[in-house]
């Protein structure tokens, strides 16, 4: 029988291609995927994308509201986007700081400007930024904090830390989960019981107090980087249990699959069965679990840092940024300080969408 082109393509496809075709049909999952890719690109190149470095203080611009970007000049003519110079002023009645635009000033937003110098990935030095305005005009897309630091730039730097903690934490959980879950599922017997009981005990701890306890045990004089790694380890200590259970469950059900039996009857050894048959059959499930675990890590980090027991300045994460917005007065007067929450929400939602889409797509043979 003749096969149409379309059918031919389907018949020749590998499992991975089938999963991808099915995933593509899931609109939300695709949006999530673009968002994640976007967020990771942002955080990878944040030195270049941010108009200022995360620690540059503008003392004359503390708690500045987001800069207005204008398209029309005083005569009402359309111009390329520009900003006006802003001057601090004190409202004599309320004693509140406010920022007033200086009329007539005109600083167009330009691409590829030279500005604060940085060390890109600690490899190259540079001072090129994707966009910016010439001094004394200043561009604060999300406003500034109490020390006059540009919140937009800090958000980008913050997501770098938060997202990477998610990645490293999950990577560590994955390692633990794969090894312990794998041993538990494949060996069975008392080893299995021991590992399963341990998991149950770990899962019984309320996670926030556990994290708090562990985080509090860290000596305060530790270097910020060391704290960062410790926090990752603390987060993954709890995170691996889910993965280990998933791996064990999958292994046990797959071990009884006929194709695994067939391989055994063909004379295949343990190594071949594990690496050729078992692992490839649930990598996609692992990816799903991992995708759904990352937002948990991000949230956990945010929560810890927000409480002040996670990362500490000078490390900037989304959590430490939110710490600035801890009291009602600040939020009422400077609502833009809550913008980092949007990043947290975007990250968590995007990962959840992708995870859901993948979960629907990983089994391309079910209809």
């Amino acid at each position, binding site marked *: *029988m003749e096969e*149409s082109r*379309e059918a031919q393509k389907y018949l020749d496809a590998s499992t991975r291609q089938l999963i991808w075709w099915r995933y593509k049909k899931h609109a939300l999952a695709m949006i999530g995927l673009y968002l994640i890719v976007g967020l990771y690109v942002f955080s990878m190149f944040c030195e270049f994308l941010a108009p200022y470095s995360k620690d540059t203080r503008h003392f004359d611009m503390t708690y500045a509201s987001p800069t207005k970007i204008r398209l029309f000049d005083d005569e009402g003519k359309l111009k390329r986007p520009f900003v006006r110079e802003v001057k601090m002023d004190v409202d004599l009645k309320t004693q509140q700081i406010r920022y007033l635009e200086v009329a007539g000033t005109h600083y167009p937003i330009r691409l590829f400007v030279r500005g604060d110098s940085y060390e890109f990935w600690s490899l190259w030095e540079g001072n090129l930024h994707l966009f910016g305005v010439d001094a004394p005009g200043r561009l604060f897309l999300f406003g500034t904090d109490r020390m006059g630091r540009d919140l937009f730039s800090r958000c980008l730097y913050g997501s770098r830390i938060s997202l990477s903690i998610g990645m490293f934490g999950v990577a560590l959980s994955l390692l633990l989960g794969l090894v312990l879950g794998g041993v538990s599922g494949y060996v069975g017997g008392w080893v299995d019981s021991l590992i399963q009981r341990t998991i149950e005990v770990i899962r019984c701890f309320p996670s926030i107090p556990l994290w708090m306890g562990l985080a509090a045990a860290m000596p305060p004089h530790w270097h910020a980087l060391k704290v960062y790694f410790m926090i990752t380890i603390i987060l993954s200590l709890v995170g691996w249990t889910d993965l280990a259970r998933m791996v064990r469950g999958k292994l046990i059900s797959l071990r009884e699959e006929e194709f695994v039996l067939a391989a055994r009857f063909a004379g295949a050894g343990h190594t071949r069965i594990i690496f050729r048959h078992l692992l490839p059959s649930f990598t996609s499930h692992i990816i799903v679990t991992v995708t759904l675990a990352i937002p948990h890590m991000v949230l956990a980090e945010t929560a810890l840092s927000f409480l002040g027991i996670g990362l500490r300045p000078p490390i900037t994460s989304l959590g430490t940024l939110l710490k600035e917005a801890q009291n009602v007065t600040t939020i009422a007067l400077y609502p833009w300080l809550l913008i980092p929450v949007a990043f947290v929400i975007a990250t968590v939602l995007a990962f959840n969408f992708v995870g859901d889409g993948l979960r629907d797509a990983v089994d391309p043979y079910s209809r």
Partner: protein
Amino acid sequence: MATILAVENLRVHFFLDQGLVRAVDGVSFTLEEGKTLGIVGESGSGKSVIGQSILRIVPPPGQIVEGNILFQHQENGATTQIDLAQLDPWGKKARSIRGREIAMIFQEPMNSFSPVHTVGNQIIEALRLHQDVSAAEARNRGIEMLGRVGIPQPELRIDAYPYELSGGMRQRAMIAMALVCNPRILIADEPTTALDVTIQAQILELLRSLQEEFRMAILFISHNLGVIAEISHEVMVVYFGRVMERATVSEIFKAPLHPYTKALLESVPGIDTPVRTHLATIEGTLPDPHMYIRGCPFFGRCGECEGNTVCRDEPYELTWVAEDHYVACPRICVPM
């Protein structure tokens, strides 16, 4: 003999992402009171969809796109003819017919029972949904029905959960649930496929005796030619969503006319085929379900048409060839 149900030129299409699938493509038949019509076909022939369309439970993206399903509806002693194909599947009317006048049993009884309620409660609920009876009376009717389908100690088993019953007993309980409202049509979709032969024989026997007792019409759907032969009065052979042949049971198994029916019968190692010899096979595979075939869908696998393009290209219809015997074979029904 009274016709209860007449299906005319039924077409059910599935609108899939990959294209249109004509699951049922112009099927017509009638169901008579107290008689069994067997639908036999291989997987993918659309035989189950026919049953689902009558109950209006075709799963999306399937839709009845054409045809009538004329049912002699009885209400308050009066008989009216209604077209089930025009009903809103979720409407009151369809729901009042489903379960009360037309009931269905499936291959896997576990799927039609809820695992968290006792068998009895589900039978009672089915009864009280359609009839105005007290709880106590419904329970008595349930016990009576369970006893009638051959479940020992029905007054105890009525409080059993589905998982506590064996496969055969579950199938009996499902039949009890289907028949408790005394339906006039029973649609049985592969009800014995998951059972062992000795249990299958029991269930077939049970269905036959219940049919005599309740005078209901049965639409029996199966892939197993033997089972169909034993239970049916009339048999319809379907392939690729179309009826290939329809005749009385003795006619179809003694003197089949359609090449597909013949091939199907020959490919089962009958007890008189010489042992350890080649069985007759049907070459090739089912056509791609997305394809539209104007002529005979069996073209290309058929051993009798010898590449005659009339078979492939000419539209044809199920044609009367003898009393109660209809065939859809272009060689027979298209003048050449």
